[in-house]
């Protein structure tokens, strides 16, 4: 471990090279492909229940009739799958595995075998989630937040014959999520140890690219917050399987306790996904503005502050759960304060764009789209952070629209920015520019069509988790009925247009223009390795002289200075 070693043993066979690989690049791609499959599952669930909302009672193409129980199960699983089984593998496990060793200039993760195991456990967790749809009684339908007493009583979709086994809805849901956590924990330990111990010579803390910082801060946030949720999930599992009464008020338990344990994790989880996406923007924006990242160190300090604050704002999800109003005030203020560091990060990105020679490449377009959309999500979050407004808007489609305006840009715009940016590096081929542009506009516009109208429906009082609104006179009138249909049509266009992306991936892998080492004239170390990088990544291993964002430096002839370029930059 401590001794220098040669990386000559590249795996040769198909199985060791593509399936049971310990190479961080292969594992990262495996995570992303699995995430794509789960996105297809989560997207299909969304299609089915959105169709049901717009055209209630009609037979859904490719599916059929949707009853209330299945509606609940589909909404529940759509939420959990998109957050933990799409967002996490795309942004944290996928990007972390692909980028961390390359960007810090080393051969692989600190524990390659653990890394491989973490992927296979993740795959099993995905299979458990999908398999839950096929057990007697169907998948869990108590809401993705698993609130007891609904989730603890066995009321939701449980086949009585199976009640004492693990093969029923709630235990399988908890098991799938628990396995995902195990996998993330193993991956997270790898990220942190690799970044701390395996950096290239000269890679001091403030020469580490922003995304590596953010991936590590996100991992720390995850590891601090996940323990209490695991404790809460163990108790929920015991309530279901053994018959304890932790969350049963009739037997001295407390259902709100679970909400606290859940959101103690659930809120930081938002930042676990947001930070890597912001990191992607932090890499893309300076490259295509040809300017140094504005206030690099301040961004890191701000995100550390945000990470600390993120674990003390969780109860803003529970303003109507009957918590003490004094506590609600505390959490309201905390929630509004946490927008300050992120506003700082966003303003730094704006300042990076300011006066830069902006190149509208595909990754840059996606990054700018991310900033525009996330701004709407963040600003509506400010309204919801105030408990007075939240009590009115809680559990309405206003909240649904708000978090889709945050999570969709984070998970999908973050992912697409990253794919369009790093695809040439990891495959050696360029993606098709025209198809990329069509894909962007056919994602950006339908996304807004889908979710912007939901703000109005939410303010009109449309409650979420209801499959059929015929008895709600405030919703069963124009324009809200039309808005439902607009939203559904937008969602269908949004999903269909993702096939353009898949087609682009396949066509570019087969016939794409060959990519050189550093197609974007970027500074960070991964662009100094071959495209695609060989097993072991570098030959020879780099030594770092500069920070990651030395663009358009006056004392350099090129407008970029790779981190391992030994020239001396004069500061004046």
């Amino acid at each position: 471990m401590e001794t220098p070693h040669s990386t000559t043993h590249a795996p040769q066979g198909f199985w060791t090279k593509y399936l049971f690989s310990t190479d961080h690049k292969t594992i990262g791609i495996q995570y992303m492909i699995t995430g794509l499959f789960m996105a297809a599952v989560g997207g299909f669930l969304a299609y089915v229940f959105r169709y049901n909302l717009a055209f209630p009672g009609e037979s859904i193409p490719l599916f059929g009739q949707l009853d209330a129980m299945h509606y609940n199960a589909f909404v529940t699983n759509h939420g959990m799958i998109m957050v933990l089984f799409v967002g996490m593998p795309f942004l944290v496990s996928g990007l972390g595995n692909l980028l961390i060793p390359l960007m810090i200039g080393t051969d692989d993760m600190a524990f390659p075998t653990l890394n491989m195991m973490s992927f296979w456990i993740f795959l099993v967790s995905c299979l458990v989630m999908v398999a839950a749809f096929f057990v007697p009684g169907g998948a869990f339908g108590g809401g993705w937040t698993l609130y007891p007493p609904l989730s603890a009583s066995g009321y939701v979709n449980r086949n009585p014959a199976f009640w004492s086994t693990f093969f029923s809805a709630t235990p399988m849901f908890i098991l799938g999520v628990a396995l995902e956590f195990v996998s993330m924990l193993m991956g997270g330990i790898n990220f942190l140890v690799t970044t701390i111990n395996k950096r290239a010579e000269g890679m001091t803390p403030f020469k580490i690219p922003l995304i590596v910082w953010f991936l590590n801060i996100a991992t720390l946030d995850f590891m601090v917050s996940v323990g209490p949720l695991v404790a809460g999930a163990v108790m929920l599992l015991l309530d279901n399987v053994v018959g304890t009464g932790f969350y049963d008020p009739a037997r001295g338990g407390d259902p709100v306790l679970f909400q606290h344990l859940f959101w103690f994790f659930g809120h930081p989880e938002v930042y676990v996904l947001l930070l890597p996406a912001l990191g992607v923007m932090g890499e893309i924006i300076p490259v295509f503005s040809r300017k140094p990242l504005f206030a690099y160190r301040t961004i890191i300090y701000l995100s550390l502050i945000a990470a600390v604050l993120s674990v003390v704002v969780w109860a803003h999800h529970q303003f109507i759960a009957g918590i003490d109003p004094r506590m609600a005030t505390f959490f309201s203020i905390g929630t509004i304060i946490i927008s300050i560091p992120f506003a700082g990060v966003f303003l730094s990105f704006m300042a990076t764009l300011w006066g830069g020679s902006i190149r509208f490449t595909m990754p840059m377009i996606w990054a700018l789209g991310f900033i525009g959309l996330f701004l709407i999500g963040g600003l509506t979050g400010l309204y919801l952070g105030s408990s007075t407004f939240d009590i009115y808007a809680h559990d309405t489609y206003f909240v649904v629209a708000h978090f889709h305006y945050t999570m969709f840009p984070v998970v999908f715009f973050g992912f697409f920015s990253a794919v369009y940016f790093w695809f040439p590096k990891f495959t050696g081929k360029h993606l098709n520019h025209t198809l990329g542009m069509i894909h962007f506009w056919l994602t950006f516009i339908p996304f807004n069509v889908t979710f912007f109208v939901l703000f109005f429906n939410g303010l009109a009082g449309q409650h979420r988790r209801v499959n059929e609104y015929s008895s709600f006179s405030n919703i069963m009138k124009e324009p809200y009925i039309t808005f439902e249909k607009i939203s559904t049509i937008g969602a269908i266009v949004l999903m269909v247009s993702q096939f353009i992306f898949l087609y682009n991936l396949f066509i570019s892998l087969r016939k794409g223009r060959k990519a050189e080492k550093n197609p974007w004239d970027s500074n960070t170390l991964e662009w100094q390795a071959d495209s695609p990088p060989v097993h072991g990544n570098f030959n020879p291993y780099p030594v770092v002289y500069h920070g990651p964002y030395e663009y358009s430096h006056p004392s350099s002839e090129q407008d970029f200075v790779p981190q391992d370029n030994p020239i001396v930059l004069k500061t004046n």
Partner: protein
Amino acid sequence: MNTAILPAQRKLIPDAVLGMLFLVSAEIMFFSGLISAYIINRSGVVDWPPLNQPRLPILMTGINTFVLALSGVFMALAVKKSAGAPRSAENWLKASALLGLTFLLVQGTEWSNMLAAGMHTNSSVFGAFFYTIIGAHGVHVVAGLLMLIYALIKNRMEPVGQNPNRLVAISVYWYFVVAVWPVLYVLVYFN
């Protein structure tokens, strides 16, 4: 074919130990979650433990606490000896594992007594918390013992002596298992 040699890196804390420290910090948060749930639930109940439930065996568990603590001390001695005297280190490791096993057996006996006295996971929230918290710790003791056995087997297979980082990493986990116990003991047994 890539023939580059990865330069040696200066490491303040070796990989294995650092990884274990991160795992332990996540575990601390797990137990914090259980403990806070327990304290919150207890604070809302007047009669704690419930009147119809048996009292917990404070004395026997107190002695058992010392057994586990001693096991931690033996582990520290094993780590200390592993550099110079691998044979002696192995003996300390065995002693440490034996005490860990004793702790587990005594706890198991207590559990069967409690069950016989009418305390079950579903007889009260008190019982549920007792078996969950103490059981969660028990699972961690089992995991620690498996690591100790792994270290002993590895030691046999590598006659030159224990890989120091592996043993230190395992010891970090074992210290955690030992150190979290008194906290749980005081919180759960003393009401």
